[in-house]
């Protein structure tokens, strides 16, 4: 039953272990890693886009394809982040905020691209025409105006304030009012056209850049990263808790397995002991079968000793109740029996006996309720007591009992069940011995009767011989050779010796 309980506990703990294992490993670590990677990708793409925007602004970007790819990359990363953060409301709100910022940035980047393409072109043309007109021999009178315009434009590239823009506008107006040399007319016209475009675009582009770089995308991305990281840490902490529980449960499982092992070991030992006991019982029974009547007493005492050793008892005894009360005792180290013991055991067995298995077992006599029984055990020095018995017409007819007076101990019920076989074997041996003794006694009496009969026959034959010749020897010899049928009356007497 205990093993059954242990097995149930084992199954329960295994189930618990499995559940804890799942909870301990289900940290969505790959999901967190993926989301963190996407967050880092957003930051990286955003930085790359801003870098490319600045490169384009100074004319170092080869083409605008990278800006388009970055737009797609940001959208893709945001979509992945949305997908992975459905259950985290704070992260979702932050992602929504980043998404809005990215859309704003996208619009700014597109506006920048459009303006910057014109800006770079007009810069090139402005430089071209300014250089050419400055070198023109026919337009020398306009050189101060060209130089002033170039200086104002240079200032505008550094300072896109309204004043600087107004200064450029003033210079352009001044140049427009001056009559160019005929050969320079087209160049001046183109210069003014590109100048006006630059005067308009420079503040716009710089304004676009300022707006773009003012977008707090990176800080929001970092905020999102912190949220996801915090969520990851929480999940990891939970997983750690489950791992601790898992470890505890593993130890519990180990304890249960050890307990189960012990129980199985104890069961094995019990079975071995039981087998040994059965073997011993068989051996004892065989000895009884092959024994001579006068050896039965010795064999019983030997069997008691062997059984006591098997039962780890200090004393064993067999009591045959009834008129011809017999008692056989084996004591460890030949210790003397306490006064009145083990007859008292018979009385105690009468007290404790119950209907059923004919087994009495008291593991700890000191734990018996106070009373005569406890006192009896105490006075006899018996600390554990077990017995099997047979019921007779007047109560217990036969009792096989074991005492432990050194250390208390428990005798397995199954072993006691086997001891009933020993009790039966001993009781049978005693009965057989009694029968043998009775037979021997009867044979002795029969022989005595035969002698008497022979004496009687001799006596009567001599009388007859005295009366008739030659008959005595024949009759006497015949009677000696085959005494039974000689006298029917005598046979009947032998059949009923009592």
């Amino acid at each position, binding site marked *: 039953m205990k093993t059954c309980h242990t097995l149930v506990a084992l199954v329960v703990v295994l189930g618990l272990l499995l559940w804890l294992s799942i909870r301990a490993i289900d940290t969505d670590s790959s999901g967190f890693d993926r989301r963190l990677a996407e967050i880092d990708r957003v930051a990286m793409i955003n930085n790359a886009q801003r870098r490319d925007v600045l490169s384009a602004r100074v004319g170092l970007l080869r083409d605008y394809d990278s800006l*388009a790819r970055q737009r797609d990359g940001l959208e893709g990363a945001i979509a992945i982040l949305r997908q992975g953060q459905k259950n985290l409301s704070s992260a979702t709100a932050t992602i929504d905020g980043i998404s809005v910022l990215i859309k704003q940035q996208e619009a700014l980047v597109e506006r920048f691209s459009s303006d910057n393409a014109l800006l770079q072109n007009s810069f090139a043309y402005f430089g071209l025409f300014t250089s050419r007109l400055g070198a023109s021999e026919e337009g020398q009178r306009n050189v101060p105006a060209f130089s002033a315009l170039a200086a104002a434009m240079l200032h505008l590239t550094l300072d896109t304030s309204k004043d600087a823009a107004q200064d450029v506008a003033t210079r352009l107006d001044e140049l427009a009012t001056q009559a160019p040399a005929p050969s320079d007319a087209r160049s001046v016209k183109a210069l003014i056209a590109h100048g006006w475009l630059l005067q308009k675009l420079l503040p716009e582009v710089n304004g676009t850049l300022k707006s773009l770089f003012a977008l707090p995308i990176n800080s929001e991305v970092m905020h999102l990263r912190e949220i996801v990281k915090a969520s990851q840490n929480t999940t990891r902490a939970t997983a750690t808790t489950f791992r601790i529980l898992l470890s505890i449960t593993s130890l519990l499982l180990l304890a249960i397995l050890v307990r189960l092992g012990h129980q199985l070991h104890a069961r094995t030992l019990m079975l071995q002991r039981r087998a040994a006991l059965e073997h011993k019982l068989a051996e004892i029974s065989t000895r009884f079968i092959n024994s001579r009547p006068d050896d039965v007493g010795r064999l019983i005492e030997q069997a008691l000793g062997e059984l006591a050793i098997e039962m780890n008892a200090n004393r064993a005894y067999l009591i045959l109740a009834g008129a011809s009360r017999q008692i056989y005792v084996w004591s460890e180290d030949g210790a003397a029996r306490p006064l009145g013991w083990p007859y008292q055991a018979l009385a105690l067995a009468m007290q404790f006996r119950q209907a059923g298995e004919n087994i009495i077992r008291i593991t700890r006599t000191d734990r018996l309720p106070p009373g005569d029984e406890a006192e009896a055990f105490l006075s006899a020095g018996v600390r554990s007591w077990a017995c099997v018995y047979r019921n007779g017409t007047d109560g217990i007819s036969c009792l096989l009992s074991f005492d432990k007076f050194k250390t208390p101990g428990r005798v397995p019920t199954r072993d006691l069940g086997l001891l009933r076989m020993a009790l039966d074997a001993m009781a049978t041996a005693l009965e057989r011995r009694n029968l043998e003794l009775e037979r021997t006694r009867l044979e002795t009496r029969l022989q005595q009767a035969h002698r008497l009969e022979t004496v009687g026959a001799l006596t009567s034959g001599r009388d007859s011989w005295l009366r008739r010749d030659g008959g005595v020897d024949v009759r006497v010899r015949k009677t000696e050779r085959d005494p039974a049928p000689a006298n029917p009356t005598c046979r009947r007497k032998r059949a009923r010796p009592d």
Partner: protein
Amino acid sequence: MAVFVCGRGLAEAFVPDFPSQLSSDVEPITPIPSAPPVNPAKLELGYRLFEDPRLSASGTRSCLSCHDTRTNGASGRRFDTALDGSLLALNTNTVFNAALSFRQNWEGDARTLEAQAEAALQSPRFMGADLNSVVQTLSKDPDLVRLFQQVYDGAPDRSRLVDAIGAYERSLLTPGCRFDAWLGGDRAALSSEELDGYQTFKSLGCISCHQGVNVGGNLFERNDVFHPLAAQQPAVLRVPSLRNIATTPPYFHDGSAATLDDAVRRMGAAQLNVDLSVHQITVIVAFLKTLTGSYEGHPVKGSTP
């Protein structure tokens, strides 16, 4: 952006001064990449849908009606006709290399090929289709249903329909043009005139907007920076790709430039404030003709009006 100055007249101001060894690593134009690998069955499904007139309300026109992939991916007409027989407001863009543009349509109002396809299918001017009805109709075609099942492991629906068309359009790239070969290191791929045209194209500033893998298609721009170019509306346009430009006349969003020479001349004036010389126009056009690639192993060719 370098502008080279070599004196005398404006027409001759931008004499090429490029280093003799050019590399695509430093060029503002990059070769067309290989088409992304796609399930062949998906391409087959996309093509079947692309040419299927059941996708229009009238059942008389398909995507292929205006985007003829057997020629230039568009039509040769200035304006294609709407469902009601009237003319559309804008010239039809080629579908070739559309996947390389950052937005679709002249106005750039479609962010993806799928969005463009869905809008075109449902537009009462273009296809006028009710996609739910189209899906129901297609669901009665066992061959198409089998293809949908094979590709999507499911029956036809709106998103799968649009996705298949988008996947097919994404495969409509035209690599193999001579200019890409030159970018790849084949110095004999371009004649001196064509190379002169490329250098002029860059030095004039055309490259400011027409750059990248699609030679355009990656930013918006006003169409009348210095002077009016064509129809004023839309005022801001997605810069068109110049890939296969020689095969897609007429030009501009209103199809008002019948020839490439005219388009180049007008672009110089309107967008750069430059009156291009005949020589400049000639060499630029010569360069632009080197941007004609191949589709399915055949050079892209012009379409008859």
